[in-house]
């Protein structure tokens, strides 16, 4: 079920029961399995999870940029402003990409064409969706570079990607993404490849751009520090499924799913007492080709019990505005409720 947890009005994007499969030699693997999400205007949704949990594939599925083969959308709907993107033709989708929905990627150094000046790459994006002259587009490109705080914007327009640092390149990517005033920006690990100081600047820039334009933002990351900084709401994914969703403060205060707890425990922070150990999550993510019956997290879960091995937990609204797919959490909450009732 979709959670009615959106704080704002009607969502601009709502993903319903999305299924993405990988068609490999070893068979069809459910990389994203029955995912539902919503994002409203001006809202920031963080999708969290470790490598291979399906978070990047989800982003590429929204953009219809899945590497095919092997990945393919096999079910569900991606509703954006009332239209199902999964059902659009490629040509119609091209008019959505870069105009209504934009995306920035993990490694800015390889995400720009090395033999084309950055200005031309920006101008290309502007002119694709707007009927403007080259000259006007150029002026707009300068304006965009200024907006993403690139000093000496006019001269930088003629630079090639190899003449820029990682941070600068990511700013150019952001400028390109916001060139046509998108309603939704998807950032797939936008700071992972950058230095820590640059990370903070990029996050700051994205927050600022979002607040001035009221666009929805999906930020995909495994960095919980980034999540705490920018997100309004967090969806945690594990082995292709959403296992928990909650407003950001609530999630950090009381993670319900045992996997989320593990993630928070494994995050270094300044408040943590010196000498205290980071708690790792033991074991490995099960292979998609070899998912166990029942909960996918059972082999790593500290609170696993019989039911987890027999039955796959479904997302349930356990507390107001939040949901989790965890029997241990359900048991714990009902015990709490009984304690209060008694």
């Amino acid at each position, binding site marked *: 079920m979709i959670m009615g947890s959106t704080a704002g009005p009607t969502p601009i994007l709502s993903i319903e029961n999305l299924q993405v499969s990988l068609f490999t030699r070893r068979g069809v693997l459910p990389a994203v399995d029955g995912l539902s999400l919503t994002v409203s205007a001006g809202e920031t949704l963080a999708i969290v999870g470790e490598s291979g949990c399906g978070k990047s594939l989800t982003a590429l599925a929204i*953009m219809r*940029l899945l590497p095919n083969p092997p990945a393919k959308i096999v079910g569900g709907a991606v509703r954006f402003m009332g239209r199902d993107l999964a059902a659009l033709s*490629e*040509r119609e989708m*091209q*008019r*959505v*990409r*870069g*105009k209504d929905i*934009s*995306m920035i*990627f993990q*490694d800015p150094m*390889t*995400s*720009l*064409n*090395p*033999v*084309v*000046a950055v200005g031309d790459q920006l101008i*290309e*994006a502007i002119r*694709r*969706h707007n009927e403007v002259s080259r000259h006007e587009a150029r002026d707009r490109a300068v304006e965009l570079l200024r907006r993403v705080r690139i000093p000496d914007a006019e001269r930088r327009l003629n630079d*090639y990607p*190899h003449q820029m640092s990682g941070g600068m390149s990511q700013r150019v*990517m952001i400028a*390109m993404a916001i060139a046509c005033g998108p309603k939704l920006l998807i950032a797939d690990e936008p700071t992972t490849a950058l230095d820590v100081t640059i990370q903070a600047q990029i996050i700051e820039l994205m927050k600022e751009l979002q607040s001035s334009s009221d666009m929805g933002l999906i930020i995909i990351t495994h960095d919980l520090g980034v999540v705490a900084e920018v997100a309004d709401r967090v969806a945690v994914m594990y082995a292709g499924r959403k296992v928990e969703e909650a407003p950001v403060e609530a999630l950090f205060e009381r993670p319900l799913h045992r996997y989320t707890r593990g993630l928070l425990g494994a995050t270094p922070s300044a408040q943590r007492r010196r000498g205290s150990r980071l708690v790792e999550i033991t074991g490995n993510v099960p292979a998609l080709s070899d998912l166990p019956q029942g909960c996918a997290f059972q082999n790593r879960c500290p609170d696993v019990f019989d039911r987890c091995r027999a039955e796959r937990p479904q997302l349930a609204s356990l507390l107001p505005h939040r949901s989790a797919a965890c029997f241990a959490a359900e048991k714990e909450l009902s015990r709490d409720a009984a304690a209060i009732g008694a």
Partner: protein
Amino acid sequence: MRRIIIRRLVQIIPLIFAVIVMNFVLIHLAPGSLFDVMTSEQQITDPAMLDQLRHTYGVDQPVTVQLAKYIWSVMRLDLGYSYRQNAPVFDVIMQQLPATLILMLAAIGIALLVGVTAGVMASIKVNTIWDNLISLGAVFFFAAPSFWLGIMMTVMFAVKLGWFPVGGMRTIGVDESAIGAVLDVMHHLVLPATALGLFYAATFARVMRASMLEVARLDFVRTARAKGLSGGRVVLAHVMRNAMLPIVTLLGLQLGTMLGGSVVIEAVFSWPGIGSLLFDSVMSRNFPMVLGVLILGSLLVAVCNATVDLLYLRLDPRIKAR
């Protein structure tokens, strides 16, 4: 930029020097000389006359002195005198060179056009019947000797179908306007240029296909698609632009072999270029002419290579002009 051009041109000098020395030695190792051919053709048998001729032509001097004299004259841009054509070597070559240049340029044009198009098509339709057909064609044209291809094309298109002339560069005895003459040359050019070009088209097609597939996987192609660009625009402006770089490298390397290949094709199609001149000159031991052709040929290849390097500089901004 200017410094790099000058440096590239200066590098040509020692290269030409090496070409002269090596070819001079090779020619003198070969049996028979111009002097032998000349005297036997004229049936000169008088020993006193032979001695006098030896002295006139300088063949009585040691080989090293001959070489030094030759290098000295080349430095003064004098390639010597051809007794067969009764004209300076340089003038004779210059008369024939344009025909070879036209053939080479046309062959390069065909090779690039056919090769790049086929490579791009194969990469777009990868692992389909089209891809397989293109690969098969590439292997065929790569394996087929160009003289055989030339002869087969002559049989098919000139003899049987009569679409193109069998050989030569101009229709004899027809006085035409400038445009008519150009069209006439182009008409004669189709078969030899295709026969020469298809071999290179085959390599270009294979390299282009591999290069396109490699570039198509890179991150910036995904960025281009995320901008909402159409499939065609992504391929042309982003994938192809990067995939062309290895083709340019290959082109530079193959210019030399192309000049060599044109010798054979010129013979097959009786194309009046320096290839047929070289062939005749070797047969008649006309060594000043052979050396002259080799020197100008290597100069041409060296200049073309330098041009390709400069082109590379323009195509790939990551290479700094130092």
